[in-house]
């Protein structure tokens, strides 16, 4: 396999994007576009999903058995691939969410401490 610079970038985002995808699918099966829109909308447009890196992430999640997919019909009556959370995915989501919250707390503690020292 030739090393691909594109893949490198995806890997940087991977943890976060995977987590967001899993979280979005908690509310039920959804197709790729729906996931992207949902993340954007829920984050109040703060997070802009790179559509190009969405599908590799979905592919990876499916390969590791965290999500599953099937063909279905989209809201505009087109054939689209719907992704849904598997049992393993649900467990992973809980674990990852916990970790994420810990990290956010830790990072913000450090950032806040700095703010106090600065003046």
């Amino acid at each position, binding site marked *: 396999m*030739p090393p*691909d610079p594109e893949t490198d970038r995806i890997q940087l985002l991977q943890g976060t994007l995977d987590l967001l995808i899993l979280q979005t699918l908690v509310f039920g099966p959804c197709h790729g576009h729906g996931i992207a829109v949902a993340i954007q909308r829920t984050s109040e447009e703060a997070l802009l999903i790179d559509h190009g890196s969405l599908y590799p992430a*979905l592919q990876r999640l499916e390969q590791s058995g965290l999500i599953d997919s099937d063909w279905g019909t989209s809201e505009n009556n087109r054939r689209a691939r719907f992704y849904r959370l598997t049992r393993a995915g649900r467990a992973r989501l809980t674990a990852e969410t916990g970790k994420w919250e810990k990290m956010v707390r830790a990072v913000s503690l450090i950032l806040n401490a700095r703010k106090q020292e600065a003046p």
Partner: protein
Amino acid sequence: MRLPRWLRWRSNSELEEEFQAHLDLETQANIERGMSPEEARFAAHRTVGNLTLMAENARAADPFGWLQGLRQDFRYGLRNMLRSPGFTGIAVLSLALGIGANSAVFSLLNRMVFRPLPVLHPNQVLSANSVSGTEVAPAFSYPNYKDFRDRSRSVSGMIGYRIAPMAMSRGGSNAQLWGYMVTGNYFEVLGVKAAIGRTITSADDVHAGGHPVIVLSYGCWQRRFGSDPNIAGQTIRINGMNFTVLGVVPREFRGLELFYAPEVYVPLAMVKVIEPGNNWIDSRRAGNLSIALRLRDGVTARGAEAELNTVAAALGREYPTDNEGMRISLCPPGLAGAYLRGSVIGFTGVLLGVTGLVLLIACTNLAGLLLARASDRRKEIGIRLALGAGRARLMRQMLVESLLLSSAGAGAGLLLAWWLTGLLAAWRPPINIPLDLSSGIDIRVLLFTCVVAVVTAVLFGLLPSMQATRTDLQSALKNAVGRGARQWPMRDLVVTLQVALSVVLLAGSILVLRSLENAMTVHLGFEPRGAAIVSFDLGLHGYDETRGRAFLHRLTQKLSGLPGISAALADRVPLGLDFSRMGIVVEGQPVPKAADIPLAFSYDAAPGLFAVMQTKLLAGREIQEGDRPGVPRVSVINQAFADRFLPRTNPLGKRFKYGSASKDWRTVVGVVEIGKHFSLSESHEPAVWDALGQDYSSQITVVARSPLAEQETLNAIRRAVLDLDPQISFYQSSTLADHLRMPMLPANLAASVLGSMGMVAMLLAAVGIYGLMSYHVARRSREFGIRAALGARPADLVNTSLRRAAFLLGCGVVAGLALATAIGPLYSAVLYNINPRDPVLLGAAAVLMIAIGLSACAAPARRAVRVDPSVALRSE
């Protein structure tokens, strides 16, 4: 049903559909946000980005995506192959030749070395050899066999067997059958069960002459008994005695000797019926029995060998006249113990080496062609590199193409190997012993072929693919000749290597052809042309010594009455598979240890034999009428016997005997010239002829010579014998020249196989050089055009184009000569009377190679001269 996850990779169309759906949804959303349909689609494309790139990325995330890529590579490779059928044809053909020859030779080696015998736990079964001096042969006496069997602790069973011809009469017709005489425990120790009825057991081998039972081979049962299911219990007549058929052995079982296809098995207790008049069974000194054994569980071959040698030492002390100094060595069974093993496997090894070389030459040839093609594909490769294809990916794709070529070659090669082994299996040797040379293509041969195919693909594909992808983009895209200069040394190296390898093979072919010529003109000690022989065994037809002597007397009279034919009797003629050697003890000389008593070939001769054979009498007299029982025994010896045993004295009148225990002294009455007795490669073998009138032999060969055609002579002596007894069946009946085809076989085989390999190599090398030169000239046609326009003479152009080729040719030839000199001794296994480093013959190979190389250059050189400046200059 859901496929396992790793099998569910997405096809391109699926991914495309998914992305299209995504794009549509985005467009829809944009329209809902109030954009015009046109704007909406553009905006959607902007957010989604490059669809193809997305698909690529998605595929890259698929851990099995490379399989998809590989499929692409295969499709692309196939298209490429079909696009240039000429190149593909040549490549597949030369690979098929190379791989096919290798697979065929390997299948032989496989049969001899790797494929287990169809017996129980075959790796426990070993063949025993008796070692005396430099000779290692599976030759034991029956008394020694019994002692080894009963005393050895490290073997769980020991069997004895002997190849034996016999005469079967059935429904008024006679047939010569070849079979085995076996000890009673034979099938039990080997663990072979009967397919029909039962096999011989120990109870069938107790009383001498008391067990007229016989077991048939599967083939014999099919051919001669029409697969009769009720065969067990029927009676057949062997050597005039009724034998009861016990059963039939399984189809795949053919005894322990790999290339012998016996028809029947008879208990050794019946030896007096099978070999009447031959008393070896009671002699401790005889060497007529082969021994095989099964190791006890947990005993190593080395351990068993050591233990058998202590038994042998004990036997040497107990029977010093027969056994002193006896040693034992063990080896895998199948090729007459260790007797043929070395030479047969050596020959096959040389063969495999040669076919390997041919394949290597085919590889270098292909590598050269691919290098040339790679530089033609520089533009294509340049474009693909420019579009972002990885080098590894491109190399993989080119290797896949090589693999496709080599797989096609291997497929065709297997067909070739299958045909070749079929040819070998159908081949009948110039003797009447039933041989089985089938080797067959089994899983090991297939595996070998696959490995060879992959290795070949890498050998000829790796270099060109590395070269091709190291392209300088700029000049490649401009299709300029540019910095292609770097490619030259590699291509030159390949051609030089090819020439070198071809010289090695060519030298090999010249050596074996010369060796065949030597073998054909070698001094045999008799004149084969114009003579014919028939052989039969009176014992097989119920003659005892008295009746036999009477028969021989009448036969001699009848033969002398044949007009224009001179004939004589002997027990056997030299250079047959059947020979007899006796230990020589000379009167007045110290007697060596039993195992060290030197041997001489021994024959029985009737009066007139040397005249008919045209063997020169050097001193004394021939065997005469007066050499009868009752008068002192006389012998004629050959010069080698005199040199070896009676040096520096007049041998006439000296006495010797066979073995230290014998009381029969024989007086030397004549000396004849040295000849060949066992193989063409031997030299100075001592030999003795006793008087047939004094030492009766039931085995008789009639030798006849006349100015008539050999075939007519043959018919005349056949009729003479059959007139006296129409029941007699001949185990040999041929011209004397045909009789020599068997000893000539190794030289013939070597010459035909290695000779043809040399031709193939030469052809491949010529194609390679031609290809290189053509390409060279084509590439430089522009330069030649300019030169011609500037006033270069044709001779200059020829010089320019040839100089490089001649240089490479020279380098290759020198390297090849060095290589041939280095590996020459490996060839000596198949050479007869030739120094494998003979400078004249090697020189001939070099000259031949240079001539072929230069003539391969002729056409391209002519093209260089004919380059039209105006065309060449305008071409780019």
